[in-house]
C-alpha cells in the first residue's frame, strides 16, 4: 500500500472537484478499491470518500421504475420491498453475490464499477493489458477456468465481468446517471460497460472525474416473472461460473416478452438480445428455452480451461427461463 491523500466529500460537486486534477479514486464501500490498493494494483494518490453523499435512497420514478442512489448498499437494495416484488431477479442476484458482510458495505455504484477478478490482473506482476496497456494478456494461454469469459473476449483480454447485480440490471433495462466537470448526463446501462477489444484498460463510459449518482431501472414488465440462476463450484461466496437473469411475460402459454442476460461468461454484463427476440411469440416450452440457450451461446469462444462454461451457461438459461415462466404463470414453486 502506498501513501495516499484522503478527502471526504459532502456533496457531488465537492466530490468531483476533489477528484479533479489528480490520480484520484472515489471511495464507496471500498470492498474492491481498498483490496486492490493493498495489492498495489490500483495506486491512487487521492481517495475521495463519497460515503457522506446523499445518494442513499431508492425512489419511484414517474415512469414506474426505481431510481437507486449510488450509495445504496447491496443489502438494502436486495431487501427493499419494491425490488423484491417487482424486480425479483435483482434481489436474487444481489443475494447470491459475495457474502453478507461484503454486501453490507458494497454500494450500487461500486458494484457497477467493480474490477475483474483475473488473478494475472491482481498479482501485480504478470503481463496484463488491463493493468499495463500493451504488456500482453497472461490469461489467454494461462490458467483460465473460473473468472474468464467465452463471450465478448478479444485477443487482448478475456476476463469476465464479475458482477451479479449488473447482469440483473442488464436484463431489466437501466440507465446510469452521471455527474462531472461538464454537468449531468445519462448512459444506457447496456452501453456503460465496454468490450475489451484492443483497449481492455478502458472498461466503461465514465469520463475524467465523472461520478455515478444513481442508476434507474426501467418499469417492470406487467405480469412478468423473473429469476436469477447462478451456477458455481460451491454454494456461496464464489463468483458465477455461469449465471442467467431472466424475465418472462406470458399470454396463456405464449411468451409475450423475454429478457435474458448472462454473467460469468461475458466480458461485460451480457444481454442476449437475439435469444430474446427468438423467444417472443413462442410457447413457453423446454424446447423453446433450449433453442434460446443455443442461440445465446452461439459464437462463444472456449479457452483452455473454460469450455465447460458454454454448456453450463445453456443450462443456466434453460433453468432461469423455466423458473421465470413458472413465476409468470403464478406458480409458487
Amino acid at each position, binding site marked *: 500500500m502506498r501513501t495516499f491523500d484522503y478527502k471526504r466529500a459532502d456533496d457531488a460537486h465537492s466530490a468531483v472537484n476533489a477528484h479533479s486534477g489528480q490520480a484520484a479514486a472515489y471511495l464507496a464501500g471500498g470492498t474492491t478499491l481498498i483490496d486492490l490498493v493493498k495489492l498495489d494494483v490500483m495506486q491512487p494518490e487521492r481517495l475521495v470518500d463519497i460515503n457522506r453523499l446523499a445518494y442513499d435512497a431508492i425512489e419511484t420514478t414517474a415512469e414506474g421504475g426505481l431510481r437507486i442512489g449510488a450509495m445504496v448498499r447491496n443489502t438494502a437494495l436486495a431487501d427493499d420491498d419494491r425490488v423484491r416484488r417487482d424486480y425479483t431477479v435483482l434481489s436474487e442476484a444481489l443475494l447470491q453475490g459475495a457474502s453478507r458482510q461484503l454486501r453490507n458495505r458494497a454500494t450500487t455504484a461500486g458494484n457497477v464499477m467493480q474490477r475483474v477478478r483475473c488473478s494475472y490482473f*491482481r498479482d501485480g*506482476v504478470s503481463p496484463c493489458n488491463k493493468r499495463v496497456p500493451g504488456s500482453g494478456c497472461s490469461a489467454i494461454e494461462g490458467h483460465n477456468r473460473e473468472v474468464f469469459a467465452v463471450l465478448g473476449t478479444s485477443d487482448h483480454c478475456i476476463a469476465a465481468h464479475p458482477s451479479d447485480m449488473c447482469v440483473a440490471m442488464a436484463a431489466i433495462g437501466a440507465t446510469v446517471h452521471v455527474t462531472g466537470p461538464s454537468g449531468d448526463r445519462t448512459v444506457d446501462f447496456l452501453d456503460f460497460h465496454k468490450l475489451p477489444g484492443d483497449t481492455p484498460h478502458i472498461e466503461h463510459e465514465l469520463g475524467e472525474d465523472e461520478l455515478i449518482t444513481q442508476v434507474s431501472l426501467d418499469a417492470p414488465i406487467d405480469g412478468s416473472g423473473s429469476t436469477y440462476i447462478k*451456477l458455481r463450484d*460451491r*454454494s*456461496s*461466496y464464489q463468483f458465477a461460473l455461469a449465471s442467467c437473469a431472466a424475465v418472462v411475460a406470458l399470454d396463456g402459454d405464449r411468451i409475450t416478452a423475454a429478457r435474458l442476460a448472462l454473467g460469468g461468461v461475458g466480458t461485460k454484463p451480457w444481454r442476449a438480445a437475439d435469444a430474446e427476440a427468438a423467444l417472443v411469440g413462442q410457447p413457453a416450452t423446454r424446447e423453446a428455452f433450449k433453442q434460446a440457450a443455443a442461440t445465446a451461446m452461439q459464437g462463444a469462444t472456449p479457452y483452455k480451461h473454460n469450455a465447460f462454461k458454454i454448456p453450463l451457461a445453456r443450462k443456466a438459461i434453460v*433453468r432461469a427461463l423455466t423458473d421465470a415462466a413458472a413465476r409468470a404463470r403464478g406458480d409458487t414453486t
Partner: protein
Amino acid sequence: MSDSIIGAAVSRIDGPDKLTGRARYAGDFQPEGMVYAYGVYSTIARGRITGIDTTLAMRSPGVIDIFHHGRFPRLHRSPGTFAEENVVDEKRTPFEDDRIHYMGQFVALVVAETYEQARAAAYKVRVDYERDAQRAAATLAQGIEDNGVEHANDSERGDPAGAYDGAAYRVDAVYTTPVETHNPMETHATVAEWVDGRLRVFDSTQGVIFTRNTLSRVFDLDPSQVEVHADFIGSGFGGKLWVWPHCVATCAAAREVGRPVQFVLPRQQMFTTVGHRPETRQHVRLGADDDGRLLSIRHETINSSSPVGTVVEACGGSTQGLYACDNLRISHATAITNRGTPTAMRAPGAGVGLFALESAMDELAAELGIDPLELRRRNFTAHDQGADKPYSSNHLLECYDRAAEAFGWSRRTPEVGSMRDGDRILGWGMAACNWEAMRNPCDARVALRADGTASIHCASQDIGTGTYTILAQIASHELGLPLESIHVTLGDSTFPHGPISGGSWATATLLPAVAEASRAAIKKLKNYARNAASPLAGARGDSLVYDSGRLSDDSGRSATVAEILGAQSLANAVGEAHTGGAPDSGYSFDSFGVHFVEVAWEPEIAHLEVTRVVSAIDAGAIINAKSARNQVEGAVVMGLGSALLETTEYDERNARPVNSNYAEYLVPVNADMPDLDVILLDHPDYELNEFGARGIGEIGLTGMQAAVANAVYHATGRRVRDLPIMLDKLIDDD
C-alpha cells in the same frame, strides 16, 4: 464428578477467552519498541537474483533496514531430524545465496516502524532476475519429465505381480490429487525479541519445543537461551509443525536492528513458502478371487517435492495393513518441482492415499458385482500384516455395522443412477478410514495449590483442538477437583518437555503424563501432611487417603489441601512426571472408521451436492465427547473440500500459484454443509495408555474423498480419479 468427567461433553475451557479476545495469538504480542517486517518475494520460480536495488525503498518513510542475500548475517542450517526435534522441511536458511528455487521465495525483508510503512517500502524494492535456461517445473508431470523420479522407499510381501496375474478380478488405475494449500484462519506470525543475547519468540507454531530447538541450531545458541511461546494458535493442521523461513528471518532481523520485530505472513504467501500437501500420482493395482478376497495389492506413489527439501507423502502407509492380503507392494517416490517444499497436512499420507485405495476397492466391487461394504467386510483383518502384529483393538466391523444401519445402506440399489429424489439422482458411496495411533514420551508438572486449585504446566500447545480442556478433565478426574479449579498452561518452551501437536498423538501422549504428575502431587502433599505444622502431623504415611482435595488419616482426622499447605506457609505441592512412548507390547496401534456419503446430482444444472454423511469412528476411548465429535466433523468438512473443491492452480508456464487468495482457493462454506452424523464407538484401548485414548484429529479426513467419489460414481457413472471433483468433470454437453 471424577467418574463422569472423562468422556463428558465438556465445552472448551478456553472458549470465553477466545470469544472475548482475551486469548492472545502470536501476532497480538507487542513487546516495547516493536517494529514490523514485510517480505519481498521472488516473481520467478527458477534462476538467480542479478541485482537488488533498495535505494527507493530505503527512502520510503519509516524504513529501518532492508535485508537480502547481500546483507544478512550468516546463519546455520538445522540438522532437521525428528530424533533431535528440530525438523525443517525447507533446508535452506533465508537469503543464503542468490538462487531462486520457487515462486514466492523470500528475496528481501523490509523492517519499518509500522506495518503499512514496511509494506509500502517492500513494493519499492527492485529485484532483477536471470531465469535459468531450463524451465521451472510447474506441475508433477513437468517435474517427472524434467527431473526424473527419485525412489524413496518400498516394501513388499509375497508375490504381488504373480498373484495379480493369476487373479480372476483386477483393477488397474491411476489416481491423482492436487496440491492443497494450508489455509487456517490465522496465517503464520512471528514476534521475535533479543534480550541480553537470549532469543524470545512468540510464534504461531504447533511445537514450541521443536521451534526452540531449531532456532537454537540456526543461531548457534544453547536451547536454554531460546524461549518460544504459543499460547493460542489459529489452527495448524500440520502447516505449523516446523520452522519456516519467515520465522528465522524475523529472528535474525530483530537481532540486527536491535528491536523486537513482528512478522505476519500475507495470505498470498501461504501458497508459496510455508508448505502444502503435495501433488500425488498413485498407481493402484488390485487382484481378487471370485469371492472378492484380495490376492494382490500394489500401491505406488510419486509426489511432487522441491529443490529445497524432499518430503515424501506416505500414501501407501494405510494400505500396508487395512485389509488381509498376502501379496503386497508399496512404494513411494518423489519428483522435484519448482515449488516450496511440501509439508504435513492433516492426515499426511493416508489423507490422499486412501482416496486411491478406497476408490480402487469400489472399482473392484463394481467389477465383482459385490456390494462395496460387503467387499470390505470380506477383507477385514484383525492382524496388521504390514507389521506382522495383531491390532491392539480393531472395531472396524462394528463401525461398518453401526454406520450402515444409521445411513440405511441396505436400501441402496447397486445400479448406477438408479436412486432418485425428484429431478436429482442420488449416489451412495462409502469408504473406510484408517490412521496410525501414536504416543510419544512426555513430561508434565502438576501443582496442588494452597488456594485449593491446581495447575498444569507442559511445553505442548493447544492448536484449537481442545487440548487445554482434556488436560483439565484428566486432572479434575485424578485430583477430584472441579474443572474450574484446574488451570492449564501450555505453549511455553521453558515448561516440562511436551510433544508437538501433530500426528493425532497429543492426547495419547499428554494424558498419562498429566495423570501421573497429578498422582505425584498427591504423594508430595501426603509427605507435607506429616510435617509438624500440618493439621495431620504425625500421620502414618500409608494411612493417608486423598479424596477430592482433602486428606484423611485412620484416626478420623482430615484436612483440605489449603489447610495442609496454609499451615506450613507452603504455596503448593508439586508433582512431576515423565511418561514413555507407545509400549512395545507386541501390538499394532491403529484407529479405524468408515464414511457413508450421499450425493445428489442434478444434471439439468450440473449441480452436485453432498446431502448426507454418516461416519463411525473407532479411536479408542473418547475423552471429551464434544471436542472429539467436533474434530471428526471438522475433518469430514475438510475431506469434502478435498474431494470437491481444493486445488492450488499453478500457471504451467512459470510455476506461479494463480488462485492464491481466500476468494479463489475454494474450501466448503456453511451453505455446502450436508447433514453430518458422527458415531463415536468409544472402546478404550488400554494397550496404548491407561485411559485407552488413541487420538482423533486426523482419522476423520481419511477416506472422505473416496466415499464422495464412490457416491458420485453411483449417481453419474463417472469414475473421477483426479481430484477435485469439480463440475467440469461431470457436466454433459447437453
